[in-house]
């Protein structure tokens, strides 16, 4: 029976994907209950604070999108959620940069972790785009001022034909839909990469699989 089902699944992309996932991302790695001892440092908290701030950004952004510009400018609750959105973005960027400093000085791209690093770089770039389109979506004079000042710089790069900062609909659509979805997917991919490869060990120290192998050999 098992041979038959094995034969039947040969050539199936779902079976191949399942096999790849089972090999590369077992449940123990995806949802670990223990971490190596070197993770016991406040430096490793920066990443999770960034994710927590992103959750606040998304949640407050959903509320703002539900009620609209008049509400977020004129009502007390609207101004509260507007501020919550703005300040959680500040926290997000501050802790993302602190996370970047920490990972830079640890050389976290070591031992096959380059994709994790690169996904982080792309996430940083996309989050800058999200913040910029957010400034343009405020629906106030500040947003207009930023748009009018930015248009020449954007046009000089040659992307002005595709990315028109004076087009509110385009900026708002990018800000509330495409860029947040992209960012959440990238962050999820970043975390999955960390779970696949494990947290980078201190420089000059063997990684966890190497430590286990060394202990077994002894």
């Amino acid at each position, binding site marked *: 029976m098992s041979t038959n089902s094995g034969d039947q699944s040969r050539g199936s992309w779902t079976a191949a994907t399942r096999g790849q996932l089972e090999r590369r991302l077992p449940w123990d790695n995806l949802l670990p209950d223990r971490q190596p*001892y070197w993770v*016991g*440092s*406040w*430096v490793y908290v920066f990443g999770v604070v960034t994710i927590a701030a992103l959750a606040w950004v998304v949640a407050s952004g959903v509320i703002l999108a539900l009620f609209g510009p008049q509400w977020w400018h004129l009502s007390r609750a609207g101004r509260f959620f507007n501020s919550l959105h703005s300040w959680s973005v500040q926290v997000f960027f501050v802790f993302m*940069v*602190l996370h970047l*400093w*920490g990972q830079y000085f640890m050389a976290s791209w070591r031992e096959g972790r380059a994709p994790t690093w690169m996904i982080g770089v792309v996430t940083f770039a996309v989050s800058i785009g999200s913040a910029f389109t957010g400034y343009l979506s405020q629906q106030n004079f500040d947003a207009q001022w930023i748009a009018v000042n930015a248009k020449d710089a954007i046009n000089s790069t040659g992307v002005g034909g595709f990315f028109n900062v004076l087009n509110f609909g385009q900026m708002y659509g990018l800000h509330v839909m495409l860029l947040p979805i992209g960012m959440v997917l990238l962050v999820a991919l970043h975390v999955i990469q960390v779970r696949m490869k494990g947290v980078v060990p201190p420089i000059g120290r063997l990684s966890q699989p190497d430590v286990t192998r060394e202990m077994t050999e002894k």
Partner: protein
Amino acid sequence: MDQPAGYLHAGFILISWPNLFLIGIMLVIFALALLLPFPGHAADDQTEKKS
């Protein structure tokens, strides 16, 4: 509050005081994260040394 921020202008360096202040706070947080002990870390470290 509702007026442009002051700027530090020293040679080629031009930065607003609020931005400079924020970078200073970030450096302090980073230094504290390196220096402050993490709860439970010492116990785990000893466990590893015993094994």
